[in-house]
């Protein structure tokens, strides 16, 4: 059995391993109820489209009212300059040095731009931010980000909003195996609770998701389902799953059974 440790994000520890988004809900009240049902302790929020600090105040207050730790993000940014400027605005609005750094490289599948991500990460770390970069599942990119000083990495499961689950479990497993001391969070692309469970079973420290909950027929119930899935996945990881085998091994020995029952 593995040793249980709480989720660690830049020295702060959390019981819940589900980070939840705040966009696309049918209403702010449903968002608040879903966040509550998810038992998440960290909520991520986008500031890109509000245009000014005062313009978004009402909605951001709703986020603050959840009492959760806020992880602002730079969703919608396409250049290093945009992301750095927005990170500074996030710091002002939410009084936090955490930033989920999201820098889009392709408009259609919203794939993060690995090159610009490295550049922006370096600038923000030097500025004193605690950066949580949203990246592709590329081992070398993850290693470079960690070498810059990122203690948390957020590789994607699949493109944002697709709900396809873990498209490349091999890559994700490799990153986990090669970077045992980095906090790893699968971010984006999850569709159903079993996807989250799978990520946690693989040893990922947490998952971050939004559309799978906000876009469900009943976001509140789905939030609760993801909470259970994440707990199940983590428990399975701690319990250590049996190794996969190619040949069947009966759980009941056949010795002592009548021979006509042994086929």
């Amino acid at each position: 059995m593995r040793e249980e440790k709480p989720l660690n994000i830049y020295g702060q520890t959390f019981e819940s391993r589900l980070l939840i988004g705040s966009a696309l809900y049918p209403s702010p009240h449903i968002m608040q109820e879903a966040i509550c049902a998810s038992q998440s302790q960290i909520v991520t929020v986008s500031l890109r489209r509000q245009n000014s600090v005062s313009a978004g105040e009402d909605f951001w207050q709703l986020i603050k009212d959840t009492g959760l730790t806020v992880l602002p993000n730079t969703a919608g940014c396409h250049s290093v300059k945009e992301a750095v400027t927005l990170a500074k605005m996030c710091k002002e609005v939410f009084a936090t040095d955490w930033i989920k750094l999201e820098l889009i490289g392709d408009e259609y599948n919203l794939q993060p731009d690995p090159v610009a991500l490295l550049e922006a990460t370096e600038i923000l770390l030097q500025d004193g931010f605690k950066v949580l970069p949203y990246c592709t599942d590329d081992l070398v990119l993850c290693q470079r980000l960690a070498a810059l000083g990122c203690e948390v990495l957020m590789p994607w499961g699949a493109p944002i909003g697709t709900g396809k689950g873990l498209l490349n479990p091999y890559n994700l497993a490799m990153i986990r195996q090669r970077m045992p001391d980095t906090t790893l969070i699968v971010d984006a692309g999850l569709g159903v609770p079993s996807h989250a469970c799978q990520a946690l079973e693989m040893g990922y420290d947490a998952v971050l998701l939004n559309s799978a909950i906000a876009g469900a027929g009943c976001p509140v119930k789905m939030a609760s389902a993801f909470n259970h899935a994440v707990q199940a996945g983590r428990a399975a990881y701690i319990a250590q799953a049996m190794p996969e085998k190619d040949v069947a091994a009966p759980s009941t020995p056949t010795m002592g059974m009548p021979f006509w029952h042994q086929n």
Partner: protein
Amino acid sequence: MKEYRVAILGFGLVGKVAAMMLHKHHQLSIFEAACDASQNGAGALAAAMLAPMAESVNCEVDIAELGLEAMAMWPELLAQLPTNVMFQQAGTLVIAHNQDMGDLQSFMQRLKPIRGHHAQRVLGADIAKLEPDLAGRFHQGVYLPSEGQLDNLAFYQQSYAFLRQQGVQFHFSQNVELHPQSHKSGIEMVNGEAFDWIIDCRGIGAKEQCDGLRGVRGEVARIYAPEVQLQRPVRLMHPRYPIYIAPKPNNEFVIGATEIESQDSGPATVRSTLELLSAAYTVHSGFAEGRVMAINAGLRPAFGDNRPRSSIKGNVISINGLYRHGYLLAPAVVRQALTKELL
């Protein structure tokens, strides 16, 4: 019924509907913050679609059913006006590009059952029959036959002219601070004038006095495109917000709408403009040479549950929070709010 002196605060959509319902029975005075009747409130920018089924995807069934009730009330309200205002019930066509079929599927899954109304799955040939201009462009969609729309600009202009003619008093450039008296005299004061009843229809203008009211920014384009012929509103699946193209009289189309959690009512952004217009262009290439008549931004007044709310304090009736459902709900919500005391 006793005739009262009634002040209506705000001459947006809700104020207009309230005035149209009350002018026969009571003496009305309307106080509006804008300097004239050609204001740019949310109701003036909107596409004025009556889409209870399509909206049911993101609202509760009772709201959608209230929308059906309101839709049945519009013809009677509009019939009071001396000139015909376009009111159409030819359904809504919902379509998606191949890459966005997942969004169409999710839309269909989330359509709520509303008594006696059904969505129809349509294929290329049905789409071509409904909208010949879209033949060959789209191969799958959903048709919502019971939905409709109206010409809100005509409604705005004509209701103002009509109510003036009926002797309703108008006071523009009036920022009213409301302090409900709840005193025994039953008299409420508005800018020094005494009234028996006040109907507060200020929408986002009442934000300071309305706990939990917020603005939700929406951006909308109005395009003149004679090359495009659409018979009914068309909704295009979009990953961030439902984009619709609503055909209005004289070859004009209202294309909207973004939905951003922001109080910023400043001009439309380049990004939103690109998103709206490129979406329209992908539906019909005839929009390419269309003329951009206007691109505006407004704030939809909404409460935390995105449901409308009405209340009575003293002799003040407040109606607010119609969110993106102004035309869908206004007649029913206003009638509910006014029935006991004034209708």
